């Protein structure tokens, strides 16, 4: 086995009410891809933030390339060749790609006291070449896709490690694939595998498939402790899941036995709804308690269609009716009032008030039901919040924890809880299980089934085709802005993914 780059021992980190890390030992070897998995709130991100000096551990030792170090801040870590690509991204949005690449390390580009654009350009092309990005260097980062942003960050970290002559840098990728399309994901992993010859990579993900396929070694964390360290080639997904959550999962993953036939009443009707250049006139209905899954590649128009239904975009033609009543197109507030819920894909920025507590977020839409004599009753508020925190298995010290302090997956569960607790007739779920752990996924499936039983119609777009097939009762397949096929998915007589892929591509 090759030498260790990073060695952390007995790392402990406490927050009010939680022990985020409890005496964790953590070692990274040269030229390896290390998969790090664990439930939401297990402490993965906290450990990584300690690696780059964003937070300091309460206890524990940190050795880098054999020598003990104290990492003061992320800039210091980057100089030492340890860097992290954040889920939210850490590039400055208004600066260009080139400016971001070299931010704070421009000193070598000075030419008679002024920065030489030409020198910077050459270096930028070379740096981006290592991650196979050909980009217009003057584009502001805010106008690039998440995939490109990740690559810029990786390129920056590699460039810095060269600049400061740090052998074998350590790159941390915290849930990089949650924001990527399938193609981009494959590119990322092929680049990661190539970079292995000169760097170590720590990969965090809730998609165990990609962890098992990409990593050399897998670490499993649970409740702030390291519970296992296994070689990836000996690992099976069910075993990993069991170690993460503490119990095994039934074969009936998507709770098919709870699937019910749709009701008679029509909840949502779309008539000739279209958006120019995005999707052509469409007609379909969603019945009470029916789960419809929209599938299609990126660019098939399914995302825009969902946004139209939620009132976030205005269709060019056609009408959208909820229980026979026509909705004003392009009005999100009317959609919410009429009872259409929308769980967006980017829950961090679209769905959650980060500065508010879990209870406040969960209760936001149901405040009217929590009133006693015209005023909001604190007891009821607490009771409702507690109930949903339990139902959705949000892991937090108390309902009054601020949402900023929650782990990524628990923030997502909070948004889901907010909609589930409100009185809705139709729910649009855009990747409801993205970034949540296996245990919570199961919980979300259970909640979806429960909502269906109470008559809520749902439109879902899932992370994997298996999930789509497993959850839905009917599948609508979109391709190039058209509805090309409709497939029934009754329980126990589900189509296989290969049947469906042929009509998607």
């Amino acid at each position, binding site marked *: 086995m090759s030498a260790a780059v990073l060695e952390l021992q007995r790392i402990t980190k406490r927050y009010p009410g939680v022990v985020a890390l409890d005496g964790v030992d953590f070692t990274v070897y040269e030229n390896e891809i290390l998969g790090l998995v664990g439930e939401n709130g297990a402490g993965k991100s906290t450990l990584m933030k300690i690696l780059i000096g964003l937070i300091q551990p309460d206890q524990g030792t940190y050795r880098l390339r054999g020598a003990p170090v104290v990492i003061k801040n992320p800039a210091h870590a980057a100089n030492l060749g340890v860097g992290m690509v954040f889920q939210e991204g850490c590039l400055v949005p208004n600066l260009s790609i080139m400016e971001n690449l070299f931010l704070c390390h421009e000193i070598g580009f000075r030419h008679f006291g*002024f920065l030489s654009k030409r020198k910077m350009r050459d270096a930028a092309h070379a740096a981006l070449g290592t991650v196979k990005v050909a*980009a217009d260097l003057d584009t502001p980062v805010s106008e690039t896709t998440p995939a490109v942003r990740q690559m810029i960050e990786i390129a920056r970290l590699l460039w810095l490690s060269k600049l400061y002559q740090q052998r074998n840098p350590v790159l941390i990728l915290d849930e990089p694939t949650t924001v990527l399309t399938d193609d*981009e994901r494959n590119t990322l992993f092929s680049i990661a595998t190539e970079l292995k010859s000169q760097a170590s990579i720590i990969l965090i993900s809730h998609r165990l498939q990609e962890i098992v396929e990409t990593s050399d070694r897998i670490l499993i964390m649970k409740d702030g402790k390291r519970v296992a360290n296994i070689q990836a080639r000996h690992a099976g997904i069910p075993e990993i899941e069991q170690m993460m959550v503490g119990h095994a999962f039934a074969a009936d993953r998507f709770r098919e036995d709870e699937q019910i036939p749709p009701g008679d009443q029509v909840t949502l009707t779309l008539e000739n709804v279209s958006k120019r250049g995005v999707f052509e006139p469409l007609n379909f209905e969603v019945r009470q308690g029916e789960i419809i899954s929209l599938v299609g590649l990126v660019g098939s128009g399914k995302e825009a269609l969902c946004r139209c239904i939620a009132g976030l975009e205005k269709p060019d033609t056609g009408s959208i009716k909820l229980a026979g009543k026509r909705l004003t197109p392009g009005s999100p507030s009317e959609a919410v009032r009429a009872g259409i819920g929308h769980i967006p894909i980017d829950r961090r920025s679209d769905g959650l008030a980060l500065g508010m507590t879990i209870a406040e977020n969960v209760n936001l839409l149901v405040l009217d039901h929590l009133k006693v004599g015209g005023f909001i009753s604190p007891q009821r508020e607490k009771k409702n919040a507690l109930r949903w925190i339990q139902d959705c298995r949000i892991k937090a010290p108390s309902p009054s924890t601020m949402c900023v302090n929650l782990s990524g997956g628990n923030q997502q569960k909070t948004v889901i809880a907010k909609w589930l607790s409100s009185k809705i007739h139709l729910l649009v779920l855009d990747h409801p299980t993205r970034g949540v752990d296996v245990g919570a996924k199961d919980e979300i499936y259970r909640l979806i089934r429960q909502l269906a039983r109470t008559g809520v119609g749902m439109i879902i777009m899932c992370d994997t085709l298996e999930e789509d097939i497993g959850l839905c009762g009917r599948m609508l397949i979109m391709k190039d802005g058209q509805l090309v096929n409709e497939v029934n998915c009754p329980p126990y007589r589900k189509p296989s993914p290969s049947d469906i892929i042929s009509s998607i591509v």
Partner: protein
Amino acid sequence: MPNTVTSMLPHRSTSWLSTSATKGRKWFQRSGISGQLLALIIVMGIFTIGTRGKYLSLVNLQVILSLAAIPAIIAIGLHQVVVLGAIDLSVEGVVAFCVVIVGFLAHNKFNANDVGLWIIPITAGVGGGAGVINGLLNTKLKIPSFISTLGMSWVLWGLAVFVSKGQTIPLLNNPLRAVVNGYVLGIPNLAIIAFLIFAIIQLVQDRTRFGRYLYAIGGDEVLSAQAGVKVHQTKIFVFGIAGVLYGLAALFLAVKLDSAQAITGNNLLFPAVTAVAVGGVALTGGIGGAKNAALGALIVTALNDGLILLDVNPYAQQAVNGAVLVVAVALTIDRKKLGFIK
């Protein structure tokens, strides 16, 4: 290569420039002043028609340039604070205080002081000092710039009136008088000075690390700090430069009026803020440079000059300016950055 970004700008198929000029057009779109140049042309066009050409006479153009110079200098100082994502409301107080200092230290009627040309570094230094205090209040004491600079303005204004007892101090034979009021090749010297200040600041913004850090902080302060940007140092420096430019503006105003009095500071903030906003500097921070501030000052001055030529009632003129400010902010603000409006 699957991950390639080409230019993200909208491609228009109908082009009024030849294809060989695409590079120029790209520069034009990216320059961040295309809209402002267009606005300036429209404003000037309308008034030229409205005044039957009188607006475009040499004399009037000279008037516009010399009137635009001081607001431009102030706006160039102010806009960098706005790029940081902060605001500086201390202009009027700083100018009032610096003007009174000029009254006391330059050759005058009331005392025997005469520091000669030393008055330039002195006023710049006093203004800069006030700016540095603004910066320290903002970074070290963590007082929102809106409050700290407003407080600073009132403190300095009060001191200026108190120290000068509200008097007007006539200046005698100021050595700068000829420079401030003169022309070179028909161009007012003050406009040349403003242009030089613009050129220096623009160069610093484009080609130095300080410039990078300024825009990085404006884009995202937390992320910049993580990348290693010295946020406090940069901010204090920006407030300091703003103060230096207010101090210089104060000196030029006093010399131009040939007298020093605290009320010279009045009515300077609004035009400066309007110039910054009209120039296309986003009040949300991170966008717009010295060229925007300078051009904004020129547009606002050209507009007001035209309104005066057309004999528009001064109150109506004020209303026009107010509307221009609100519209400019509405057009330039980066709404993505605002979760909610306060």
